[in-house]
């Protein structure tokens, strides 16, 4: 859906599709086709198979080119699919039968095939329309000038065909792909072959790669396979949403990459990759559930709450001792470790109306005293539990209780109480408050 959305915007902006329009459309179509298969690669932890296959298809391309004598679509797809199967088969057999570590077997297979491809290019195709540099970098800029097929530039037409194929396979084999990605053994018990799905996916990768080759080149296609999918994986937890999101992210990086590439007057496919990488970096930090910023925030909130609660409990214990020596805000902050976090914790408590502060004295409000009593109750119940049920020595129970008191809610308090024989006093002889 997002692809169509982006396209409508584009068509609205450009009544007659310009050179740039074709490039952006090709970029979006390529990204979309790649993102659909890329999601499964990322989820199956086989992202590097994308890298491997995108390099290994080179000899297949050359052979297809040699046999058919042209760069027409069908032989290329057949060659790509064949190489996809061969690469997968060789990688797996090397690992399984010759006990080569799986990453090394992948490395051996794809680099050797690639070298074979380079030699074949040199021997048979050099001088013809086959540039090795294009294999790496692609030539997105030249797309609008390619011969038209069905009114579209050929690379765009090819990618759209592959996008269509991928979507059809996705719909037809949705359940199988999903189950075999998350739980291969369940797939086997449900009666379909996880291995067959594996090969199907690898053929899809190979065909998609080949279709994208001319436009974006072998390495940048890896970016389009993996980066949007990994970004989407950071942002959501459902497969359907992940695929839709990765297509949208791919389209966005194509659009923005085109804009940036034109702005800096540089390689467009490379720029699309850099933009995709940038979006991934943003997601790493800002993803609402799995981002680093939100993780840091969550950690900080917990540690502030712990500090606030420590402060409250300390004030409660001082009150309990009935000492008339006042505790100043500075002393209190020092007692919970000092620094800006302690200052924030104190300010938070004051704002929540749990303490009253004057320059020389902190006192609990009624609300604060209730909260503190619950905490101290948790603490002392836990100490009692440790001594009674785990037989821990008296001088070893304060530390664990001090740590765990922040995570004991009312329900757990009741459970602890029902487990204990004495609930009036803790093992140190202090009263357990109600």
């Amino acid at each position, binding site marked *: 859906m997002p692809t169509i959305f982006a396209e409508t915007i584009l068509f609205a902006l450009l009544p007659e599709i310009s050179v740039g329009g074709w490039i952006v459309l090709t970029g979006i179509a390529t990204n979309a086709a790649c993102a659909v298969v890329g999601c499964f690669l990322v989820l199956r932890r086989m992202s590097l198979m994308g*890298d491997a296959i995108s390099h290994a298809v080179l000899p297949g391309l050359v052979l297809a080119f040699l046999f058919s004598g042209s760069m027409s679509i069908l032989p290329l797809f057949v060659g790509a699919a064949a190489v996809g199967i061969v690469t997968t088969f060789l990688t797996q057999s090397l690992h399984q039968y010759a006990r*080569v570590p799986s990453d090394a077997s992948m*490395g051996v297979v794809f680099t050797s095939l690639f070298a074979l491809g380079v030699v074949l290019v040199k021997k048979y195709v050099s001088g013809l329309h086959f540039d090795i540099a294009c294999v790496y970098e692609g030539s997105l800029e030249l797309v609008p000038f390619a011969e038209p097929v069905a009114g579209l530039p050929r690379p765009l037409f090819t990618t759209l065909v592959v996008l269509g194929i991928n979507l059809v396979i996705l719909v037809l084999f949705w359940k199988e792909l999903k189950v075999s990605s998350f739980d291969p053994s369940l797939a086997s018990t449900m009666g379909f072959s996880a291995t067959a799905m594996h090969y199907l996916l690898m053929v899809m990768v190979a065909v998609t790669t080949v279709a994208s080759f001319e436009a974006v080149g072998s390495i940048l296609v890896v970016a389009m396979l993996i980066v949007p999918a990994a970004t989407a994986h950071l942002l959501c937890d459902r497969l359907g949403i992940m695929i839709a999101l990765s297509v949208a992210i791919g389209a966005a990086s194509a659009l923005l990459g085109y804009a940036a590439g034109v702005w800096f007057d540089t390689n467009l496919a490379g720029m699309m990759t850099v933009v995709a990488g940038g979006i991934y970096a943003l997601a790493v930090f800002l993803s609402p559930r799995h981002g680093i910023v939100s993780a840091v925030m969550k950690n900080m909130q917990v540690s502030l709450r712990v500090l606030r609660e420590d402060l409250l409990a300390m004030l409660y214990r001082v009150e309990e001792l009935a000492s008339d020596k006042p505790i100043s805000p500075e002393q209190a902050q020092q007692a919970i470790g000092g620094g800006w976090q302690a200052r924030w914790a104190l300010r938070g408590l004051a704002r929540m109306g749990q303490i009253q502060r004057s320059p020389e004295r902190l006192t609990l409000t009624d609300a604060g005293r209730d909260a503190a009593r619950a905490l101290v109750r948790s603490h002392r119940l836990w100490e009692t539990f440790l001594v009674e049920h785990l037989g821990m020595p008296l001088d070893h129970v304060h530390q664990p209780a001090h740590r765990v008191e922040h995570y004991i809610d009312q329900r757990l308090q009741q459970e602890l109480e029902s487990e204990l024989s004495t609930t009036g006093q803790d093992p140190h002889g202090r009263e357990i408050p109600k």
Partner: protein
Amino acid sequence: MTGLALSEKIMIGTALLGGMSGVIGSFAVLRGRSLVGDMLAHAALPGVCLAFLLLGTRNLLGLSLGALATGLLAVAAVTGIVRWTRTKEDAAIGIVLSTFFGAGVVLLSVIQKPGVGGNKAGLNGYLFGEPGNMLTGDLYLLAGVAFVVLMTVALFFKEFQLVCFDTDFAQSQGWPTLLLDLAIMAALALVTIVGLPIVGVILMAAMIILPAATARFWTNRLHVMLLLAGGFGIAAGLLGTQLGRNYPAGASIVLTGAAIFLFSLLFAPQRGMVSRLMTEFRLRRRIAREHLLRSLYELGESQLPELAELHLEQIVADRYWKPRTLERLLDIAVDSNWIKRTDQTIQLTPVGLRHAAELTKTHRLWELYLMQHADIAADHVDRDADEVEHLLPESLLLQLQQQLADEGRLPLIISEVPKSPHEIGTDNT
């Protein structure tokens, strides 16, 4: 070294590169980091371009430093992504590799604009490898890196070995595993980056993996593996440049390496496919032979101590042999003098009986053990007999034997068997 011809320089250079990438690649392969070389090679591209933009010349040392900088940045990025996000290592490597390479492509097209000065020839060599550009100074750099890497490996051999095979143990012994790991990665980065201009981005990954994976077929000892991998690397470098004069050097070096790999995969002793298939074939034949002997014993057990004459159909019915398999097995058994065979009947010889009795005894002991002491259902225990005597404690074995004897199912061997042939022989004649 100034008087060297270009072809000699290329040979020395590729041999140096092959040797050191074989050695350091062994650690990468054993450590499960085979594809880090691939990533480093790709991630070096933006560094090379940046260094070129800054320096304005193609100076191998300068460009290599640039490559090293972005390469290490890439390693750090992957480590960070794996540590702090839910992205897994494979995807992290893919993301960093392709994004860095994309940035490199962008910078490369900036460099290729007419406004940017400097000698741009040879910069493309970083992508595809161009040993023809090798200067004498580059050889010194290669030799220097090779020296540093080999000295590091020699000095820290024991530590690297420990980290490669048992990181947890190394950590528990107080070794700084992270630092050692980083040292390996840094050496890998050095080698990758000086190798780039010779073999190119993709094929540098092959230089790291191929010699090491090849050496692994030949040995189980690390120091032998390092020597072999270095040797294979040198061989690939020398042969590749010699054999593939008309082809891109990187590709022909890698294909030579792949050929050595393929040969080792097939013909290495022990770990090679041919020898593994042979071993498996022998094992299968032994098992089939033992099945035959046991069948013969069990079919004739009721008539002991007489040696029963069995019909071919009886044997076929007992085990569902395929006729051809059975014929072959019987031929072998006749050759070993275990059975006497007429057209339709088969009879164990005394020697065969003794073998068969021993096999049957072992088998029954196993069965009994599995049923009584390993909680396995009675219909699951008919496994292939193995040498139970070596696996079970003697006291248990005696107890099991006694039990079999009580049930009258203990095959009589050694003491009794040698007597029987005489009586049977006289009976039959």
